[in-house]
């Protein structure tokens, strides 16, 4: 299933994020599952919040790992907002992340239906295929490998302790 396609099923995604949440609690980290639409495929997501200081402002960064039913891969959605609730614009986000507008797109959050940025999932299966030896047959390893890649792109700290899940 995963070795050749680079894809993940919804059930596997659910079990993988559950393990991540458990570990996060013991590490005192705040990755948590939001059961938005409990019984619908794709209806729960893993979320993480952190605050960063940028030029005298404390920005709130909210990250949602959502399962994409059409691509069969996890997708990283995120928003960065000022303390007054205003979202950073596309240009500001690109400036902060030092990325170009083509890598980061602003879309409608599939569950909350509000504007969110996302790292486009169209190449995820290719990338995960190339890592297939590392996460051979394990949805949890798949998710953690994927997570280590996207958290790097967005400068989210993911302590090495999460690597423990790769040896599960």
């Amino acid at each position, binding site marked *: 299933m995963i070795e050749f396609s680079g894809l993940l099923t919804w059930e596997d995604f659910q079990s993988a994020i559950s393990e991540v949440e458990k570990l996060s609690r013991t590490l*005192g980290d705040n990755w948590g599952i939001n059961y938005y639409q409990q019984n619908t495929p794709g209806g729960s997501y893993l979320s993480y919040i952190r605050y960063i200081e940028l030029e005298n402002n404390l920005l709130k960064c909210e990250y949602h790992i959502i399962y994409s039913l059409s691509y069969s891969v996890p997708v990283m959605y995120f928003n960065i907002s000022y303390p007054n609730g205003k*979202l950073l614009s596309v240009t500001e986000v690109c400036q902060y992340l030092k990325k170009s507008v*083509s890598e980061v797109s602003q879309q409608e959050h599939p569950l909350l239906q509000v504007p969110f940025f996302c790292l486009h999932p169209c190449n995820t299966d290719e990338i995960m295929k190339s890592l297939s030896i590392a996460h051979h047959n394990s949805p949890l390893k798949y998710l953690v490998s994927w997570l280590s890649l996207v958290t790097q792109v967005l400068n989210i700290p993911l302590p090495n302790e999460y690597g423990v899940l790769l040896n599960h």
Partner: protein
Amino acid sequence: MSNQVSPFSSIISPGFWQKFAELVLQQKAVTSRIPIWGYYGPSSTKLSIFTVDHTSFDEYPATYYNQLSVKGEIISTSSLEEFKNLDKNSLIGEYLCLENTEKKPESLKTFFILSYPDLKSYTFTYWFAFPAISSIKFSYMSPSPVPESLLPVFEASKEIWKFGFFLVDLTTCTLKPLEENTGSEIFGYLEPSGIDSVPGWVIRNYLAYIIKARKLQSGDEIKLLSLLPKKSEFSESRIYLIKLEFPDDWESHPKILGWERNENKLLPRMVDLKSNLDPVTLSESFVDFNLKLMKWRLFPEFDLDLMHEVKVCILGAGTLGCNVARTLMGWGVRHISIVDSGKVSYSNPVRQSLYTYKDSGKGKAITAADSLKNIFPGVEAKGYDIHIPMPGHPTSPSTVEKVKQDFHTLEELIKTHDVIFLLTDTRESRWAPTMLGAAYDKIVINAALGFDSYVVLRHGRSTEDLGCYFCTDVVVPGDSTQDRTLDQQCTVTRPGVSMIAASLAVELMAAVLHVGKGLSKNPTLGAPPHSLRGWLSSSQHISPMFARFTNCSGCSEKVVGAYKDEGIELILRVLGDSSYLEILSGLDKLKEGLEGIVELDDTEESD
């Protein structure tokens, strides 16, 4: 007495304003108060963060890891004046009632937001307040670590300390809720401050509660446990010795403070959320975003700004006109003018995609423009109910003024727009716009339909030796409608043909506009053909090119020159007598010449 506290810094999630805007709109609120939840927890930065988000309006608060919830209110005023004139001191005093605090410790932690939501401009003026008694002075001394035996108790008794304030029984190593105060326990609280030895804001009201609960006197000292969960450990928590000082009248003159400072000043804050909340702005940015995807992934020379700025004039709001207008919006075109003198008839809506049956009887040009705005509010669409002057359709004294007015409007439209689509239903109605388009060197795109066939062509610009709609005709446009039967007067076509022709016409425009933009050796949209002709039944589609005709009744120098010299006078002359165009263009001489050639003597025999 150091008296220092770390005040709360409010952080609002975008979802909070969204929810709030929805509620205000539904309630059509005059001044109103809506209960909300706020959250705070141990600090990971130097600030004590207090947050509200989309869950704030739910009946029950969300359970966030290591965060506790606070019940509060958002007060909305219906005008900025009301916001400014509200007595801030009495408002904040109203929120804190010490008697209540004794009986119901929940009121120890309270907050509210004063707001003025302006839902026309999507700006929110707001001011957080964390009411607290300031008449009690205190100092934090002698911090000591929490006894090791107590640490596992915190992990196990999460439910108790999650209230924010609790009792610690050192002898039994247990936590108890505030109500079970017997006098021997230490008071504890969740520390929102991230600064050593500087407590969070919540301490102020807590000390007032403690003084009453233990009947303390000014000068007394007590121990307080400041709980600081870090990761899943509590070892950074501290027990402090607090010395208290307060005047006798501290209860009757509590000196309630708590309005949040804005860059150190006691001022409200304002946030402009038009780009996040206004549906019109959102629709524009999502439409543009979609178009930009085309640019990044497939069509690098795409000029979206050009599409936003180009001014397009559509002559004829029938099947072709409606479909062209919609497809233009798909390309991001924002300025569309529509000309038509007709009214929507019952047969129109099924083929003319900007009308519904409810529009029957209404003027086409204006209805089409309104329909475009309904589809995409960011478009600037305007309808013009004018008659296009046609050769061979004479005026009468009663109509001549209107003809002159309409012609001037048409003239202005063509002068001020960049692209003209000729999509009218007769040949002769295309004459004046063709000539005007040539006179002002505009991009003119013509489309016409047969039952089974279509032609789409672009008129040659001044620098091109390419022909126009009339260049292949040796017959001048004249009244074609006079003797026609009903089915000849309106073009009866296979319904799909008009959509095909309209789409081709718009794509032709896009290709023309992008000619010369980078990649000119290999333009992504292809080199724009001169004309496109197709026949559905034989699945044929060709793109012929033909030259400009020196005796063209529409675009030749002689005709255009006459217009530049005479203006409306030329028009009036042509309307009355289309044969004048023959003379002007030189077609009459040409025909004479041809007649000469054609008169062959059939009886001649070769020798």
